[in-house]
């Protein structure tokens, strides 16, 4: 059968995009020699910064999970005046330029704002601290968690919850016995997306906390100070470790064929 020109256009565009995404990444991953990679991972500063990146992103995911789940449920289950507005507010962090996020957070957490003053009274430091990094990462990551989880809840028929209630289960029991077991995959995907977004953040973090140095800031610093060759190995390690973590989490969400 002769293919139509339209078919060839779709194929060619697809190939161009694949190449555009993959070529630089493959080039990056294969550039450093094994010796170079080994040397880099023995550098205590590098290990510390990669670890900091992973655990601050993980904390952002955890905070999103704890604080975001009830809101995601509310948005999935009820209609109220201003729901669209709330949904718009949730998507704001995706649209705002990253350095602006950092500046915005500092303007609330800084000494000139009463919240910042309360924080400093309590001994909480935001500027240049792990607290500040986690705050920024949660800010940029939480929309991804909320949207994925909301979609997950929407996919569960409210009738299942109604039947559960009629059989004697309270709202809490219903949530933990019915809703959560059916939605945990979406939640986990939400956490992965939230963490992935958080681990890639640079612009906002660099404003709030240059030190302690997360991996993207360190990559930038090495690039500035020593050039491409010295920044590549750290990038390779960061990308490999986070991809491996996400892959493991993603495997958990694959359904066995006998499940729905």
């Amino acid at each position: 059968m002769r293919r139509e020109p339209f078919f060839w256009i779709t194929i060619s565009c697809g190939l161009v995009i694949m190449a555009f995404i993959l070529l630089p990444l493959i080039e990056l991953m294969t550039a450093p020699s094994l010796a170079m990679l080994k040397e880099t991972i023995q550098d205590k500063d590098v290990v510390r910064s990669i670890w900091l990146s992973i655990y601050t992103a993980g904390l952002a995911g955890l905070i999103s999970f704890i604080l975001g789940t009830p809101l995601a449920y509310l948005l999935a289950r009820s209609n109220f005046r201003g729901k669209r507005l709330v949904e718009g507010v949730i998507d704001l962090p995706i649209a705002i330029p990253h350095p602006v996020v950092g500046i915005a957070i500092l303007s609330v957490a800084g000494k000139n704002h009463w919240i910042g003053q309360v924080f400093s009274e309590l001994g909480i430091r935001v500027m240049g601290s792990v607290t500040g990094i986690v705050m920024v990462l949660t800010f940029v990551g939480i929309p991804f968690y909320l949207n994925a989880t909301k979609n997950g809840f929407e996919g569960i028929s409210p009738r299942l919850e109604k039947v559960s209630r009629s059989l004697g289960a309270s709202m809490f029991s219903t949530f933990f016995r019915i809703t959560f077991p059916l939605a945990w995959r979406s939640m986990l995907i939400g956490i992965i997306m939230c963490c992935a977004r958080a681990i890639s953040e640079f612009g906002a973090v660099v404003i709030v906390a240059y030190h302690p140095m997360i991996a993207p800031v360190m990559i930038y610093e090495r690039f500035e100070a020593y050039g491409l060759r010295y920044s590549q190995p750290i990038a390779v390690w960061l990308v490999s470790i986070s991809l491996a973590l996400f892959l493991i989490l993603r495997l958990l969400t694959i359904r066995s064929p006998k499940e729905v």
Partner: protein
Amino acid sequence: MIAVQDLNISLPEFDLSDINLSIGESEFFILMGPTGAGKTVLLEAMAGLVPIRSGKIFIGERDITTLPPEKRDISLVYQDYALFPHLTVLENITYGLHFHRIDRAQSEVMLTRLLEILNLRHLQGRLPVNLSGGEKQRVSLARALMVEPRVLLLDEPLSALDPAFREEVRNAIKRLHQSSNATFLMVTHDFAEALSLARRAAVMNNGRIEQVGSIEDIFQRPSSTFVADFVGMKNLFTARFKGTKAVVRSLEIELGREPSDSIGYIAIRPEDIVISREAIASSMRNSFKAGVTGIFDQGFYYEVHVRAGEVTFKSLITKRSVFELQLREGTEVFVSFKSTAIHNF
């Protein structure tokens, strides 16, 4: 028993107004009405799942209006089964036991009985995704009754099933009602279902109850034109069955088949009843001499009432036929219908 008093509900696109309904202890009650009449909303309001604006709901003497759904002793069966997809058949059925203090031995007896009546024993370990529609609905019935509710609400439980399974599940519902103390309230569109299961029914339209009464009354003495239109099948009679014949008062009607019960109902659609001036020689097994007792203009059609012996038949015929047959009150006619046009329950 369950009673609803002056119930009003306002939802964004829908209102229920002035609902009054009283269903007896252990009664089987049918709720009918077109799509969008508010039947599901009424059921969910009784179960406490929809907020109400005013009115009261009682179970027995107890006012349950402000109780949360889990404290009402009302179970639900939906058309789409609503089985918990992550739980096995057995876990679905026993789900409610987590929240009820029911003696273990007693619940074992209950479980055995339900598995028996609903023929679910061999399916206990399966997940819902591997069940047929009929099996799913049987599981959902078992799950609802396992907690021994005071009231069971069934929202079109048979509508989604293939005809082959429908009768099987209908019979199961009938057996369950006979062997339990619960009051059953079922929504259905199907009059054969209604007649075979219940004695009393209500017809809803547009968020209001149009008529409550015995099913026979609703058919024969509809209180509004809406109900009359809605029930459609206007010739409904109680009958005794003798061999292949149905005896309605003094009239012997040939069914051409032998019903399993000795007593029941027969129904004939008005458009299946033929009126003629002379006795017609045809394949119609039933032909009776009758007199016209009334002629009513229905727009495109006339509804003609004819009386044969002590039985009044309602027939729908065209204006032209009325004119050609020169029908008026008192005219002597023959009324005929095929035995295949007769439904018996």
